[in-house]
């Protein structure tokens, strides 16, 4: 592997570890908050989340094929779908703890995805071995984290 790609790979894995820790902190806050408050109410998760999950999974495959532009488009579609989910939830940020965590987790994840889309677009125009390696790792990390977030939301909605 070329030196720049090796550096980028290591850096991207470390960044992923840090992002994972961020989500672990948020997840443990959810688990504790759900247990102590006595005010947790069931949340009807918008169905569009399943479509979004499919879009993100597809983008992961496309990234492996190095079709950066298509992956960016799928990532942007995922973000649009998440925004749609925010609209259709029917509750605001202050609409109880379950809704608060829904917005928090999807929001923080979405912000990271937005950064990933920017990286994919960058790669579409001028990919280097380093940026290709880094964006690939970053994107798959976000995909994996979304699966965990989705499971957490499904668990927490009851």
């Amino acid at each position, binding site marked *: 592997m070329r030196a720049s790609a090796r550096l980028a790979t290591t*850096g991207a894995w*470390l960044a992923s570890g840090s992002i994972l820790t961020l989500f672990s902190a948020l997840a443990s806050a959810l688990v504790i908050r759900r247990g*102590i408050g006595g*005010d947790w109410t069931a949340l009807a998760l918008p169905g569009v989340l399943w479509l979004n999950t499919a879009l993100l999974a597809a983008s992961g495959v496309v990234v492996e094929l190095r079709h950066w532009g298509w992956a960016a488009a799928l990532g942007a579609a995922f973000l649009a779908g998440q925004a749609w989910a925010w609209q259709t939830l029917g509750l605001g940020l202050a609409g109880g703890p379950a809704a608060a965590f829904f917005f928090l987790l999807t929001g923080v994840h979405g912000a990271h995805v937005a950064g990933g889309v920017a990286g994919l677009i960058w790669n579409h125009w001028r990919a280097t071995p380093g940026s290709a390696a880094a964006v690939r790792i970053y994107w798959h990390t976000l995909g994996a984290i979304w699966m965990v977030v989705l499971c957490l939301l499904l668990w927490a909605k009851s």
Partner: protein
Amino acid sequence: MLGRIFSTDHKVIGKQYFFLALFSVLVGVVLSVFMRLHLIYPDMKVRLFELLWPTGAAGGIMTPELYLSIMTMHGTLMVFFVLTTAPQGGFGNYFLPLQIGAADMAFPRLNALSFWTTFAALLVLLGAFFVPGGAPLGGWTAYPPLSAVGEVAGPGQGDGMDMWILSIALFSIASLLNSINFITTVLELRAPGMTLMRMPLTVWGWFTTAIISLLAFAVLLAAGLLLLLDRWGGTSFFLPSGLVLSDRVLNHSGGSPILWQHLFWFFGHPEVYIAILPGMGLISTILSVNSRRPVFGYKAMVGAMLVIAFLGFAVWGHHMFISGMSPYSSIAFSVLTMTVGVPSAIKTFNWLGTLWGGKLRLNVAMLFALGFVSLFVAGGITGIFLGQPAMDLYLHDTYFVVGHFHLIMGVAAVFAMFAGTYYWFPKMYGRMMNETIGKIHFYITFLGVYGIFVPMHVAGFAGNPRRYSDFKEFEFLADLTRVHTFISHTSFTVAAVQLLFVFNLFWSMWRGARAAVNPWEATTLEWTVPSPPPHDNFGGAEVMVHHGPYEYSVPGAASDRVMQTEEKRS
């Protein structure tokens, strides 16, 4: 000009971090002098206070709210912008690539981005002094509920608190980027022959610190986000039901302020090791160089650092013994806390073992290194008191705690920075700092800090609560007036003596005696290049490492040191 300011050279960035920390520490010290002055002369009209804070100190007398905001800013500046910034961002950036034989950090542009984000964080924090209501009052730990409800909790808890959270969030992001850079550099850019076990202990210190930062600051960022949402978004992560403030029931329900404590201290305790681990590595080096002996038990030193880093994540509960946690949890946290004593004792034993039988050179760097060992032991022993729930019930939130953490986290780490400055200044500027001024600086500071912080332990034992803006209302504290007078006057002296250091630093930059390439006769790679090192460090030459970092007084060697780059004799 812009290219020089926004440089991507790790040496320039290291200096930028260093001077940012120097500025912060000066502001922090001035704030502490204000506090100590107010504590012993609460009724004295100070014109300067009124000039600086026309509303907080109308008539020159500090209000309790202003006192608390000064305390908060002192703590935040010192913990984040001094203790976290100088050892890692400053010395780490400058010397890590040099010590492993690299031309720069792994990601130079990311490195510059980290520094400028830290710089922005500092501006935002200082900006809190100038927003309506002034700086926040909640201390550097920003405990909810009072940090989460806004201005109703005090003047600085409005805009000032928002600025604080934004500043800490920016700082966390900068630290995360910085740690990614440090770890990647150590893993990927070591010169041929520089195996992990040939790295100077300074590099091990920066490396373990970076690993801790990478995990701890992510959690702080999460906590800060939740706090912001409670303040701005109407959520109830940390705010419980039925909270009454100023005769008003707040419209929040179900949250827990204890949740913040868990998240905060999961960051906050590792933060202590972020401040001290680079210092531990540096002190090992300086003791070794100046006793002309190898570091005693190098492998044990590396192991102890890693164990300290690991245990750092398992002891956060000892900050929460009186939060109402289960006594069983308390025992678990207490035992784990005591366990930190084991690697700490290994380190201390090995430092003494390094000195034993050595040919000691008592230059200023060495004196500060010895001072570090002394402070580390003193501060560590008082930690054993506090690590026991039964003792902590009494001592929590007293001056005992203030004395303890200032000794071990504050002053010990600052002594490591002083040692580092005196030790590395010749490499950074090609000139020597003045040893005589340095020794005066050391002896007064060393005696002074004990004069400040040991009596604080006494006050704590007598039940003196911390964070009170004046003691005259309380009869049971009347006997401690003289103790506080002594502490304050000692602190004024110590603060004044730091001007000698600042003078020495800047005077030596232009007027100090010219330094040789390797004035301390050390063996690590930074002493093989000119002072200051050229832009690309080693002039593009391939560095080959043949030796460990501490080969002093090797039997049969030509001189009393073997440079790391020296080729092995066949």
